[in-house]
């Protein structure tokens, strides 16, 4: 029933038309790369200005003759005072490493519970500094914390080492650019097929191209599959470009494995079908054309494309879970950043089901001919 030959000839004509249209090519291929360059340049701005250090002060202090001594506060103030580092305190009730990874924080510091007690009793004590080896600020943080340690050691105990630093690395995933690459790949996977098919569904109807096509043996399912194949090709090309730019220009630390392939297949299939479905329903109910944007835009911004969704308020995070793109971006992050393949498999399963439902609905609902 479905003919590969017809799909191929429709694919050929469509892709050729797409490539000949400079404007479409710019938005399809170049624009997402430009986004990576802009966001990458803004957020990985190495060295200039102050560096944020997230600190959790677990120090319990020490009660001496009715007075509570607390050297940790002074210690953190001293770090802050350098002007190069800015200390941002993290509540003690939070799991620090989890908090760091969830918010993709590059530099962190833990002051231990017995800090004041040890300091007063001249017992060695370690503060833990977390840095991201792929980031550009870790060295500065370690250097300054070391200097403050020396200052404290010198000032009080003539150079005996009491405070020293334990160095921990936080997973390489902590850098913003690492999130940005999968996020913007998700963005490209959404935007190209979705906008194109919403537009096609109204233009082809208006200028009777659907009628024209219905006069040939091409079926509407074959036609849609040809569009999907093209957007798989385009998304894959766009993916390679963005990954290359992310790695080469900003040192993005991302994993490229075969696990990405199902996402690059299902993603465009999902959003090409969704575009067709939204366009068809818009036509059917004679709704204004902006309906397509009303579906696309929230998904574009709230699915973890430009920033991790943990940055958003709780209710928006909940809302993100009904957006199909969320699972694509989460899946890409699971593969590229966390190497969490179990998580990626779950995302794929969710995407697979949504894609199938939307594809079938789109093919069923949209009509070549009018009755």
């Amino acid at each position, binding site marked *: 029933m479905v003919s590969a030959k017809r799909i191929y000839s429709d694919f050929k004509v469509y892709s050729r*038309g797409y490539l000949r*249209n400079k404007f479409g090519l710019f938005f399809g291929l170049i624009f997402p790369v430009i986004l990576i360059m802009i966001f990458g340049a803004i957020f990985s701005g190495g060295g200039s200005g102050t560096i944020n250090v997230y600190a959790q002060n677990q120090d319990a202090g020490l009660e001496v003759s009715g007075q509570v001594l607390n050297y940790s506060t002074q210690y953190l103030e001293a770090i802050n005072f350098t002007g190069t580092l800015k200390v941002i305190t993290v509540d003690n009730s939070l799991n620090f490493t989890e908090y760091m990874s969830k918010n993709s924080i590059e530099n962190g510091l833990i002051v231990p519970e017995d800090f004041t007690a040890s300091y007063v009793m001249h017992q060695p004590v370690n503060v833990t500094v977390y840095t991201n080896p792929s980031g550009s600020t870790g060295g500065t943080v370690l250097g300054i914390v070391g200097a403050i340690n020396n200052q404290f050691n010198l000032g009080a105990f003539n150079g005996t080492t009491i405070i020293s630093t334990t160095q921990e690395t936080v997973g390489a995933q902590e850098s913003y650019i690492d999130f940005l690459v999968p996020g913007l790949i998700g963005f490209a996977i959404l935007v190209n097929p979705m906008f194109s098919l919403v537009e096609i569904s109204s233009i082809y109807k208006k200028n009777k191209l659907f009628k024209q096509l219905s*006069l040939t*043996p091409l079926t509407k399912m074959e036609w849609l599959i040809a569009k999907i194949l093209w957007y798989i090709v385009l998304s894959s090309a766009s993916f390679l470009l963005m990954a290359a730019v992310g790695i080469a220009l900003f040192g993005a630390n991302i994993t490229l494995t075969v696990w990405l392939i199902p996402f690059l297949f299902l993603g465009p299939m999902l959003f090409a079908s969704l575009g067709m479905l939204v366009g068809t329903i818009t036509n059917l109910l004679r709704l204004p054309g902006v309906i397509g944007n009303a579906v696309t835009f929230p998904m574009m911004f709230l699915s973890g494309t430009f920033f991790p969704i943990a940055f958003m308020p709780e209710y928006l995070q909940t809302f993100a879970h009904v957006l199909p793109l969320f699972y694509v971006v989460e899946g890409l992050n699971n593969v590229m950043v966390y190497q969490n393949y179990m998580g990626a498999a779950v995302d794929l399963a969710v995407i697979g089901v949504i894609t199938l439902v939307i594809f079938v609905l789109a093919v069923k609902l949209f009509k070549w*001919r009018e009755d």
Partner: protein
Amino acid sequence: MLPIEVSQLRKNYGDLKAVDGISFTVKEGEVFGLLGPNGAGKTTTIEIMEGLRERDGGDVKVLGLDPWKKGYELHKKIGVIPQEFTFFEKTTPREAIIYYADLFNIKVDPDQILKDVLLEESTKTYFDELSGGQKRKTGLALSLVNSPELLFLDEPTTGLDPNARRAIWEVIRNLKAKGKTIILTTHYLDEAQQLSDRVAIMDHGHIVAMGTTSEIIQKHGSGERLTIQGTQKLADYIKTNTELQVDYDKTRGEIVIPLQKKIDALAGLAAAEQSGLEWGQIQTRQDSLDDVFVKLVSEPAGEQGEMAVEQKPKKKGLF
């Protein structure tokens, strides 16, 4: 079996009866013209025959098939140019032909088809850069890819300049010469007259006249008449001095004498000469298709200009 059999066809859009119970048949090798003003229901009728719209009532058989239910099967056997044909912007006519041939799974010589529709010169131009006439020719070329015996052309020359129209006419005449059956809609009288073997005049969803153009003129037009430029006084003189029926058209200053026999004209002119009064230009004329058209079609489309005829009504001098 006739290629096309339509009986009591009806189609409504809401309260509007776009096609209101029309019947006709088309014979093999015939060019059948659906002529009517905008909104008459031509496109609705032709698209129902093409299987692109569903009918509300009546029977339609195209090549023996129900066009809506058996559309997929029918489309392999017919060629169609929809009204205001458009195609993918960045595709050349040649690529479009190859695309269609691939879809129909047949081998064609694209250059031969381009030659058949007089489009050899612009095979490498993208569709959106073609002229109006070249675009229509591309449509014609595509409708020929599957070598159909039956062609539907919806307003094939509307909006084209006279040269482009003539070129399309030439292609259509060549197709007719090859024995193809062609259904053509148009709101140009001359086009219907030039190309069609038979014409159905449509208005408000009805067929108001059908047959060859001379049959339609004979049936719905008034007979031959003699007109003489002159005064009311002259008209009265002729009336009293002959047996003839004499009417006077004040606005034109014209004496109109319907002719039962051609020889009646002689009596009328003899009386005019006898009267000693001044008289000017004389002519005999018969209703042309556009006279009949104006008579039959209640409100010619709102825009009178649309009903353009290229030739002047035929005039026959008597002497």
